[in-house]
């Protein structure tokens, strides 16, 4: 009984968070007309989320690309000698279509989403958001919209960066452990990949950026209960956005990639 209760509560809470996040997204979109006015805040947030995430995204993408290159390369070699030369196409497709966008988003959900929820949650429990309201400053314009714009720019950019780093990692393993030349590796990667693949990866990054921001801001703004409440909001922001990224990833594949890009 307990496990069903808890699962039910968890799912209800996640659906509620998604619903409130969607309403907040709509409110933030309506504040986009003030984007020029908030450009300094937006630039600062974009730097914070984009540039400061480069080391963690680099390490994640590099080693993921290396593992994909190594695992698939050795399996292909086992199947038939010489087949490992096609490893570039597998690493390229895996990084640009799935691993780049999803891993970047998952890393940012923890790294940026958690931070965002805890900052806004702390502001909420310290009555800073009430103070903004009393000063007739719309918290959605002041806090949410600049973060949304910054993440809509930062996540796709970091996704492309992760694609490049991951493919580079795969190429190094292919060359030094499988004996596949860089030319063969990149020729395979670029032959398989289409512009649509890269654009679809960017679209994913853009959608994931919105999900991370809206869940983090929604959790932050609805924080109650002091330091413990901030911790709870932070944890929920990370877990809910992580799960919603995975769900959205499948929906994007099913509704956009399969019919319009994959053609199957």
């Amino acid at each position, binding site marked *: 009984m307990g496990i069903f209760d808890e699962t039910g509560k968890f799912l209800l809470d996640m659906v509620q968070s998604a619903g409130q996040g969607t309403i907040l997204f709509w409110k933030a979109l309506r504040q986009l007309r003030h984007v020029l006015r908030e450009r300094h805040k937006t630039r600062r947030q974009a730097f914070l989320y984009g540039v400061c995430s480069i080391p963690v995204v680099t390490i994640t993408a590099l080693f993921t690309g290396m593992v994909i290159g190594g695992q698939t390369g050795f399996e292909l070699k086992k199947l038939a000698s010489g087949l490992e030369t096609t490893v570039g196409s597998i690493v390229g497709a895996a990084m640009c279509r799935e691993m780049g966008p999803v891993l970047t988003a998952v890393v940012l959900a923890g790294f940026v989403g958690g931070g965002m929820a805890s900052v806004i949650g*702390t*502001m909420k429990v*310290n*009555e*800073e958001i*009430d*103070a*903004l*309201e*009393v*000063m*007739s*400053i*719309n918290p959605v314009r*002041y806090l949410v919209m600049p973060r949304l714009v910054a993440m809509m720019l930062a996540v796709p950019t970091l996704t492309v960066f992760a694609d490049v780093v991951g493919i580079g990692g795969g190429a190094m393993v292919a060359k030094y452990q499988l004996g596949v030349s860089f030319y063969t590796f990149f020729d395979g990667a670029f032959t398989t990949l289409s512009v649509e693949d890269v654009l679809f990866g960017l679209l994913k990054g853009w959608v994931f950026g919105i999900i991370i921001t809206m869940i983090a801001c929604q959790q932050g703004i609805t924080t109650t209960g002091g330091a413990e409440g901030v911790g709870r909001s932070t944890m929920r922001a990370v877990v809910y956005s992580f799960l919603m990224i995975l769900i959205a990833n499948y929906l994007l594949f099913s509704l956009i990639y399969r019919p319009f890009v994959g053609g199957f």
Partner: protein
Amino acid sequence: MGTDVNSSESTAVPVIEMREVRKRLGGKQVLDGVNLAVPGGSTTTILGMSGCGKSTLVKHIVGLLRPDSGDVFVEGRDVGRASDSELRDIRKSFGMVFQGSALLQSLTVFENVALPLSEHRTMPPAQIRERVAEVLELVRLTGFEGYLPAELSGGMRKRAGVARAVVTKPDILLYDEPTTGLDPVITNTVNEMIKDMREKLGVTSVVISHDIPSAGKTSDRLAVLHNGRILESGPPEEIMNSALPEVRQFMEGGTRGPLTND
């Protein structure tokens, strides 16, 4: 038991008026038919024990909470039913000093105090600098413009909060526990400031407190909140000598009586 506050108010037109305001929060009836009228240009202190709903009451005045039933009027405008944009307009008349100062931690003292002016673009930057310097001098924080709130003491943060509240020259000031946790010297400084706001600027003030000596020094009127209702209100000397057992116990700080029997 509840006294109808309106019946004992002065003849001045109330700037803030609450009629039969009820609010339930977290399963508890926090406000249970509050009636309150605050005359223009006066300082009214709402007294009550911790957790009796004082902060909830003040949040209704500024529209941070909406009543489940009843009316809240500020300068004749219905705060309880105002749209978000109307509320933003109504709030331009307000300044509020929060219990924990509520300064934005990422901004310096100068940026915090200048925030309502720079966000609403009511004056050019040079004039904003001048106005901020003026209010920082008023709260004796000149020289601390570049400090972050975390680098200030509790009293200094409170004073910076007061500076931010008055920088727009509001018509109405709300103070949520302005002297809680302050040493006696800073408490008196804050009390003097509250008096100055009324005497020099003619501001209408509502102070939420359980600091009876400070309330006696700064207020024209006291109102005692208990069990979600205003038990009694009137001039300080009248309330200090109240015949109501609950009010007497609160004023005397007695550990036994109707307040502690609830």
